[in-house]
């Protein structure tokens, strides 16, 4: 293929499971992982005569999402029935929103190589999830688990605004950050709380019309999303270059082979026979409620990114990394607030450096960090007041991580206090110069490298405790005879 000649066009449909405790139309619990069919009530089982009652919490979460993406909130929105038969769809229809969704016309800004890009969000609508068909362990039969049936979903549909798998992943990540940030979704992709369908088409660069798209269903990790889109785009380009037309279809991605394969063609597509659900009245939203939710909305990732750059002087990169999740930003802000001297860069470096590395190593979320912001702040305070060198601080941090106590306790117990007494440092320098006459000679002959070797020796002699800046200054003074 010739990468320069083709352009990939991608739009995403994301199903975010809303974080309500009960289902969207029944009182049954939504918790993940219960024994099959123990969280399915009469309504979820679609017994004869049962009726849906809308969960206000699901509507509230949709409104919060709309506010977070600057979307239009339809003050009157309508639930429709999407009719099709499948064993894990108990009513024979899914209650969804078709003609009048609750959210329309929003946007999300994502970071791309050369800056930022706005991805338009066409709509987001409320709907119920289906159950699960279990094909294993049933001796050739299929088991049906209706625990998930009726779980509230917000289906978020983007415009076809993305032009590469990378952009699609950046958008999906930004969306994931946002829905977890505002607390409407737990974002757990393994459990299916955040599922992505990708509509992919290709067209010659410069062509205005879109190519025929194929939809890749149910991608449950960002890695698979990227792999699937890359594979699908390559496949489509090859097909076209081989003289075939792309036919509209729904496909599945197989993570083992890294390939997409056809699930159903356009001809096999259902006629869902949408019509307004007569069991549910149109949803009418109260202005006061919307305003109340608007004022309760937290500062959003984009707002924080802008503030970190403008007010704290952080780079775009740092601001982006610190707002990758709300917990990270909250940790950073708590740390910064607790520092004896405000130093955003120092706090940012620690959050993104040692802390993040330690957390990644044990796959722990920053919200559950064993070293709390206040504890880390007291450690960094010791760096700021010169008690610890950066290197010693790392040692103390490791001990704090291991649960050995707070920074001052560890410093005292291990005798890690930085040596800043110039008399003591000079004594060490004298010893080192005496023992390394050759290096001293070389330095005086103009070899700068020899200086570093001598610094190393002094630090070693101090067991790493000497204040490096002082060692540097005093050593240079002695060597150049300016003493």
């Amino acid at each position, binding site marked *: 293929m010739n990468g320069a000649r083709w352009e990939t066009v991608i739009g995403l449909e994301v199903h975010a499971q809303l974080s309500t405790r009960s289902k969207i139309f029944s009182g049954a619990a939504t918790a993940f992982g219960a024994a099959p069919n123990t969280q399915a009530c009469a309504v979820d089982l679609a017994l004869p005569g049962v009726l849906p009652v809308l969960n206000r919490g699901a509507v509230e979460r949709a409104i919060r999402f709309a506010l977070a993406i600057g979307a239009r909130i339809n003050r009157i929105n309508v639930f429709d029935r999407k009719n099709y038969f499948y064993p894990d769809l108990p009513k024979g229809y899914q209650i969804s929103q078709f003609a009048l969704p609750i959210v329309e016309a929003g946007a999300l800004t994502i970071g791309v190589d050369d800056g930022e890009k706005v991805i338009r969000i066409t709509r987001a609508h409320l709907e119920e999830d289906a159950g699960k068909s279990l094909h294993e362990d049933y001796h050739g039969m299929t088991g049906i688990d209706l625990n998930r049936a009726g779980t509230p979903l917000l289906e978020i549909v983007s415009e076809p605004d993305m032009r590469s798998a990378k952009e699609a992943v950046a958008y999906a990540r930004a969306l994931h950050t946002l829905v977890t940030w505002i607390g409407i979704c737990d974002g757990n992709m393994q459990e299916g709380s955040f599922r992505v369908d990708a509509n992919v088409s290709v067209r010659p660069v410069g062509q205005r019309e879109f190519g025929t798209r194929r939809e890749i269903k149910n991608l449950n990790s960002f890695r698979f999303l990227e792999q699937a889109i890359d594979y699908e785009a390559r496949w489509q380009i090859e097909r076209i270059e081989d003289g075939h037309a792309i036919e509209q279809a729904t496909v599945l991605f197989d993570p083992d082979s890294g390939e997409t394969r056809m699930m159903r063609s356009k001809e096999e597509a259902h006629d869902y*026979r949408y019509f307004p659900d007569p069991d549910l009245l149109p949803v009418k939203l109260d202005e006061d409620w919307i305003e109340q939710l608007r004022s309760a909305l937290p500062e959003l990732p984009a707002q924080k990114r802008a503030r970190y750059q403008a007010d704290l002087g952080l780079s775009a990169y740092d601001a982006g990394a610190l707002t990758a999740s709300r917990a990270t930003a909250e940790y950073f802000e708590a740390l910064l607030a607790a520092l004896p001297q405000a130093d955003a860069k120092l706090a940012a470096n620690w959050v993104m450096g040692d802390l993040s590395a330690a957390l990644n190593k044990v796959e722990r979320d920053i919200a559950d960090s064993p070293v709390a912001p206040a504890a880390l702040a007291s450690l960094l305070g010791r760096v700021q007041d010169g008690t610890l060198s950066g290197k010693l601080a790392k040692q103390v941090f490791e001990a704090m991580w291991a649960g050995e106590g707070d920074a001052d306790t560890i410093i005292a117990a291990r005798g890690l206090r930085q040596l800043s007494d110039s008399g003591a440092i000079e004594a060490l320098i004298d010893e080192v110069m005496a023992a390394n006459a050759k290096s001293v000679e070389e330095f005086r002959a103009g070899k700068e490298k020899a200086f570093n070797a001598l610094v190393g020796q002094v630090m070693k002699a101090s067991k790493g405790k000497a204040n490096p800046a002082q060692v540097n200054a005093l050593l240079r003074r002695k060597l150049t005879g300016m003493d």
Partner: protein
Amino acid sequence: MTTLTELAALLATGKTSSVELCQDYLARIAAWNPTLNAFITVDAERTLSEARAADALRAQGRGGALTGVPIAHKDIFCAEGWRTTCGSRMLANFTAPYDASVIERCKAAGMPCLGKTNMDEFAMGSSNETSFFGPVRNPWDVERVPGGSSGGSAAAVAARMAPAATGTDTGGSIRQPAALTGITGLKPSYGVVSRYGMIAFASSLDQGGPMAPGAEDCALLLNVMAGFDARDSTSLERAPEDYTRDLARPLTGVRIGLPREFFGAGLSADTARAVLAAVEELRRQGAETVDVSLPNSGLSVAAYYVLAPAEASSNLSRYDGVRYGHRAAEYRDLTDLYERTRAEGFGTEVKRRIMIGTYVLSHGYYDAYYLQAQKLRRLIARDFEQAFRQCDVILGPTAPATAFRLGEKTADPVAMYLSDIYTIAVNLAGLPGLSLPCGFDTAGLPIGLQLIGDYFTEARLLNVAHQYQCITDWHRRLPAGMS
């Protein structure tokens, strides 16, 4: 036999017990049901144990007005522990695990259940001939139909196998059988009686209501059945009403509207004569009459037979053989399971309506049928709105003719559909409608008169009907040999 008021008095004064009453009615059921087939399920033990509980309540002085008075329930209401078939093979093996709201309310009032009454399959029919459990016969002439779909409840009350019964009315299913069997039946305003646990036919039209010999009985029973229910989103949150409050009100000055469209071609001479005679009677009681017009009422049957099947086709999708109800004994794969189960489980009329409904909701036909019918529905509602500016109550025939012979219209669905020509518009508009007996035709068959009120004027309809019944005895007459 006796009215609910009289039965309540007998129980209150200890002249009889609920057990004795139930035994009497069960004996009458045993005597007449083999001929009339009004009940699908009778469970004497269950009835008597409910009666004993009611007697115990009364003995403790904790009973209400109707505690101990038995009632028959249309087999469309789920009643815990009772087989609930909806007149279909599909649910012939289904025992409800929960109580419908109406059942719950009757139980709370202490009313023992005498049994589950026969009905057209899924309430689709006007003659009770579509029941999987065989047709119900009219007590006035066993070669004739009792009307439908609440034909079992109507026949049970007409033959005094029950002092009262519940029914449901989607296009006339309470009023038309009430008319054809010489009893009184009321379809309340949409939203007055909870639909929770009432097996859905056409959700936007279905409404439960009382069926009994007289209007006073219906008022007492509606007091039990009506009320807000949070489990039905279309249930209306209104202050509780006493539907007996206006029964004794004189009719002086009541304006009765006579729609010219209800007295035109297609109305049998006997029915026209009896209805107009009743109008004269009401005038003598002080009512005034005004001519009104419902210009779009002629379109109601057409609109109804788009909307009701559309909703039904979706409502009946849950009967797929997967979770409960009938399942084909043998099938090759999933599609075969669905096809055989539904082919075997549903009767001809139900299949016809599922097909019509599926068709009108299909891609490319939705606008021409479903949306068009919704427009007609609004026009029909507007007709009533205008008519009620000139009158308090609209009066006309309930059905174009008296009870027809079994098999007479089964080959001609349209002729069958036209039996509901005067009742359907009321459902489309969501208004209350009441049928009461107003005479007999030359063959000795009962004739029904329909009263239609503005929204929530049930008490007014009951008032007019009761005043008429204070000076007539049509509702007290019994078929020959059934005293």
